[in-house]
């Protein structure tokens, strides 16, 4: 099939988002591995645009806004359409959003090493690029709303709540958090700026990445396990408190900074409160799997997503502990945070994105090109992320305890050297997994015949699927 810049066939937006994301996973991984190498060999690359401090934000942003965002958006658009039993409202608008997204984030990646940065973590993109991303999110929001407005299935399934919630909240968070009315600096002044920046920085995960991933877990777990969702009431408990708590916890990144004490207290209390929706979500997922555990090894999609939920348990429990001052004193500023971030973004959101990505392609093309390669990728990534988290958490505790013991940062450097090497090694596992994924995706797309529109939106599967999904209401 000839390449069309704007593809209007049903499902093209979702597919293109997913495949772009897979590509950027590799790119972000390469940059990340380079950064990890530069931490043990700082003189590796002399070029000024490729030194560690310039490519670290490139790595972070590629992973968050290219890989995770794009794969999750793609999979979410697919899920919304399937649940509504309607094609996407406008594939044209979706494709335009896809290109805006790709190009704006790419522009961001080129401008950060060139020195155009707001210096806010996860918000390094300068004003024009932020605007482009907001426009893309806005277009996607309209698309989702219009699709849902035309839905054939009256009941709004949980996945859709998360889609709507994520898009709505993110528009607001981006607008305030990036201080859109100060185009020159995108910043407030002093400590106040830190409070705003972390409101934004935290909610990139809280209202954007995580809800999309949670929604996808709600979509795929009942479907793959062939079991109705455990409880509608628990879904509600996992949804509203989630947003209510998450939006207020940004200041837990500043617990010992001179921020307002009452603000820190709010952040800490809400961080503990967050465990309610987190465990509600997990209960719901795992109970849905009751009696169907044997399904996990068979379906690579379920495997990825189930592993993702387990890592969600660990990240979030760890996150709550990190937000408590007594542990924060040791862990803050160290690699414990980096370990937590990787477990959350790669282990939880990344695994769910990969699982959902495979799910989307499998349903679009009938089957994945190679299940075995996908299984291999799963194990490589699993070894990678577990090793990674273990190494970074250990080295972080080592740093934190040494500092508490009066050692200077410089004195601890030689101690942590070998951990940094080890982290690079585990990074290779993850990067290999990413490479396998993109190969497998492309093979699937080019080697398998795409299902026709009738097949795709025909009732035979759709009838079965939402029944299983929304079953808890009817059954």
């Amino acid at each position: 099939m000839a390449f069309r810049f704007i593809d209007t066939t049903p499902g093209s937006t979702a597919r293109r988002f997913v495949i772009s994301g897979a590509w950027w996973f590799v790119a972000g991984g390469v940059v990340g591995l380079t950064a990890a190498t530069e931490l043990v060999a700082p003189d590796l690359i002399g070029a000024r645009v490729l030194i560690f401090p310039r490519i670290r934000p490139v790595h972070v942003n590629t992973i968050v806004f290219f890989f995770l965002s794009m794969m999750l958006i793609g999979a979410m658009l697919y899920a919304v359409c399937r649940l509504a039993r309607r094609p996407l409202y406008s594939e044209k608008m979706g494709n335009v959003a896809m290109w805006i997204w790709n190009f704006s984030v790419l522009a961001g990646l080129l401008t950060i090493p060139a020195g155009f940065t707001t210096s806010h973590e996860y918000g390094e993109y300068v004003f024009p690029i932020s605007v482009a991303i907001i426009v893309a999110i806005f277009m996607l929001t309209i698309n989702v709303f219009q699709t849902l407005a035309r839905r054939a299935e009256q009941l709004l399934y949980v996945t859709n709540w998360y889609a709507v919630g994520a898009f709505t909240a993110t528009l607001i968070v981006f607008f305030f958090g990036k201080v859109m009315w100060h185009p020159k600096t995108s910043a407030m002044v002093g400590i106040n700026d830190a409070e705003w920046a972390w409101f934004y920085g935290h909610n990139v995960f809280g209202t954007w990445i995580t809800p999309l991933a949670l929604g996808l877990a709600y979509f795929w777990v009942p479907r793959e396990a062939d079991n109705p969702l455990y409880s509608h009431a628990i879904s509600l408990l996992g949804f509203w408190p989630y947003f209510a708590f998450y939006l207020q916890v940004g200041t837990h990144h500043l617990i010992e900074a001179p921020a307002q004490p009452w603000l820190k207290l709010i952040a800490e209390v809400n961080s503990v409160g967050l465990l309610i929706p987190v465990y509600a979500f997990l209960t719901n997922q795992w109970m849905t799997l009751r009696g169907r555990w044997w399904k996990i090894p068979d379906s690579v999609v379920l495997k990825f997503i189930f592993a993702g939920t387990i890592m969600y348990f660990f990240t979030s429990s760890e996150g709550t502990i990190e937000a408590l001052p007594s542990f924060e004193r040791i862990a803050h500023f160290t690699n414990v945070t980096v370990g937590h971030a990787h477990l959350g973004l790669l282990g939880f959101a990344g695994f769910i994105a990969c699982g959902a990505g495979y799910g989307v392609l499998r349903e679009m093309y009938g089957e994945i090109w190679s299940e075995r390669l996908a299984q291999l990728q799963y194990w490589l990534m699993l070894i990678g992320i577990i090793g990674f988290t273990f190494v970074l958490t250990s080295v972080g505790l080592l740093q934190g305890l040494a500092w508490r013991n009066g050692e200077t940062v410089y004195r601890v450097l030689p101690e942590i050297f070998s951990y940094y090497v080890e982290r690079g090694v585990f990074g290779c596992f993850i990067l290999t997994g990413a490479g396998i994924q993109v190969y497998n995706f492309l093979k699937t797309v080019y080697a398998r015949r795409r299902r026709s529109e009738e097949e795709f939106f025909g009732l035979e599967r759709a009838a079965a699927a939402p029944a299983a999904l929304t079953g808890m209401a009817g059954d």
Partner: protein
Amino acid sequence: MGMTPRSVALGIALIATFAAWAVLFLPGLSAPNSPSNIVRPYTPLEREGRVLYIKSGCIGCHTQYVRPTDWDYSDLRVSQRGDYIYDRPHLLGSERTGPDLSQEGGQHSDDWNLAHFEDPRFVRPASIMPRFSFFTRQQMQAIIAYVQCLGFKMADERMARQIHWHRRLLAAYRHGEDYNATYLAKLVPRQWMTMPNPYAATQGSVQRGKFVYQQMCIFCHGPVGDGNGPAARYLNPKPMNFTLLKRHRWSGGMIYYQVMNGITGSAMPYFKEDLESAKIWDVANYVAVNFIGRNVDSGNDLNGIPASREGAIPGTKPLVPGAGTKAPVPGPARKVYPQRPSSSPQPASTPAAPGGRSQRH
């Protein structure tokens, strides 16, 4: 309550707006940006350096606030909200791959900073900070000016000391190396000049000292202690040539004092934070044995009891002869206590010792 797209969107929008009000607007409204007692505005050059700091991504490795729990800078000031009122954007940072910089101004001399940006490993051999040798002259000036202003009025005070002593050290250095060494010696309190190293220069001690030397000193003072490490190119005055000190028979407490306190006004940093007492004595042994070639220690090779004034009990022999085997010292193996050279030229003005750590509050 039905979960429709509209109700979900409305509910989330309400929550988000409420949260933005509570955790964004209220904190700003309830805590006005009033200045702290140390803050001052940036000069244009410092501002330029700050922009460079942002563009270069230094924030990825450096934080800019001191916590109540920090040991590193425990005798400095815990950061306050009012310290940041001229910061837009903030540069608090979230990771300490490198040390905190909020009180960095004046901790080191300008030439230390220059050598450090040219290649951090010149002055900090185990550093993992990248080189910034690609900075132009103007950029280098700006970034150093910025780093030296961190800590604001406290930094200004430290910088005033650096500048004051820099002039005097330079003058002494221009007089010639020998004169310089004598001048430096005069700044060291007498009791330190005559104090022997309480740790015997055993092989273990010298070996440990070597390790410390390689991690802290080697690229300034050079692998052979002649002061010709790669950093020397950027430093003025140049690092001390230890072999020069042999003539003056200085070692022991003098080295300890200088290493502990640094030499304000020169690139010689203080190591009080980085090295515990025993490690400084060890590196002093290493320098004395290997470079100065004349060591002054307490002569106490009683295994493990570092008594500073106590030799062996008169009339006894060590129970384990040779347990604390001395590292071989080139040169005459006799015990020499340092004396002040009487015939050396007097420096023009010798105010009281700079009092090493006085560079900090």
